[in-house]
């Protein structure tokens, strides 16, 4: 199962969403699907029409910059980052 690390800006919006959790998914896109099944609406917080990751949401898989199509291994670490924006 891939290990997801989520930004501090999400658990305040979705009740009981942890900062870290494991999901069964073959791609980043599927991992977001798994999240959206348990926390409806979270896909819209991470993705925009296209679909594509939102401009200031960066995802890294095993420390490499990733996109929705990036494949996950069973032991992948996925970091979702609220990138520099605003002040």
């Amino acid at each position: 199962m891939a290990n997801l690390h989520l930004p501090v800006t999400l658990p305040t919006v979705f009740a009981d969403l942890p900062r870290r959790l494991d999901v069964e998914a073959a791609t980043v896109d599927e991992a977001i699907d798994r999240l959206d099944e348990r926390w409806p609406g979270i896909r819209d917080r991470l993705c925009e029409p296209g679909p594509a990751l939102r401009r200031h949401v960066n995802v890294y898989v095993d420390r490499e910059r990733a996109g929705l199509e990036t494949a996950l291994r069973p032991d992948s670490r996925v970091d979702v980052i609220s990138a520099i924006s605003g002040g």
Partner: protein
Amino acid sequence: MATRVVLLVGTRKGCFILESDEARRDWHVRGPFCDGWPIYNAIHDAESGAIYAAAASEWHGAGVWRSPDLGETWELSSEGLGYGENGELRLSKVAGLMAAHGRIVAGAEAAGLFESHDGGATWSLLTTLDGQPGRTKWNMPENQPPGHLGIAGLLADPDDRNRFWAVVQGWGIFETTDGGMSWTPRNEGLRAEWPLEDPRVNYCVHKLVMSPVDHDRLYQQNHCGMHRSDDAGKSWTEITEGLPSDFGFAAAAHPHDRESFYVIPLDAGHGRCMPDGQAAVWRTQDRGSSWRKLTAGLPDRNAYIGVLRDGLAIDDLDTPGLYFGTSTGQVFASNDEGETWSAAASYLPGISSVEVAVIS
């Protein structure tokens, strides 16, 4: 039950709630709510008692926060708020809200209207005003005005569920009488300081308000002057003379007197602050024939403060209270129709909107 006077203050970093009693002297501040998301407009729906806050996060997109219990709990929804995967339009923010007749309407950028019939839980696209003059141009990136609000204002008709007005930023007022299916430009008599390709549109309407006691009486602060309509927006008459500037954003109509109306003139250049560093609200009590400057209790020097289009509100108590929030985070309150003022909050984030609700 004691009367509660509640100010909803939308800021760059969340929604705040200021509360007082009927005397409106002491204010208790709660917040920030909405997880610190930038709030463009926060409103109170008198029918349901719920608060709705239009929001857009740089990280997580646009949505509407709602609280059924005056700020104790909040939920965010954006379900249905979007133009789909393949359309020409992208939704960047929800800029304005209107609650009336059991429906919530949200105005968005790119310019479009969405409606909710379930208290803001889900939304559906109502219109993008297709076919209206200017429609093919107003969403072009090169035509975007500062702020990029899209739909910069919404005004309900208290008598008619199917009639309301929408302001397209930089293009003007449009009226629908069939619930949003068809629209008519309502900009006749307005002034523009730029060449008009189509005289029906391309007017810069900053704020549109209606007299609660005469629904044909509308007022507006325009980029180019103050204006009054006596026929529900079908025609407009300029009433700027006597004001220190023809520019400003905010406006409020007196709840009991159709002839009384408030504005906050600003310098029209880059500063867009109150003239001469002196804070002032201006009032007409003769439908714009003359104006009086109201300053008692407001900072009278070195006050280079601005107020945005939704930043001025008035309550409907017998002696109405006025409230305005500044782009530098102060809220000023008056409990005597603007005669005297005091600070209700001084160190909030930059303020986009102020709305007042009187709850008995």
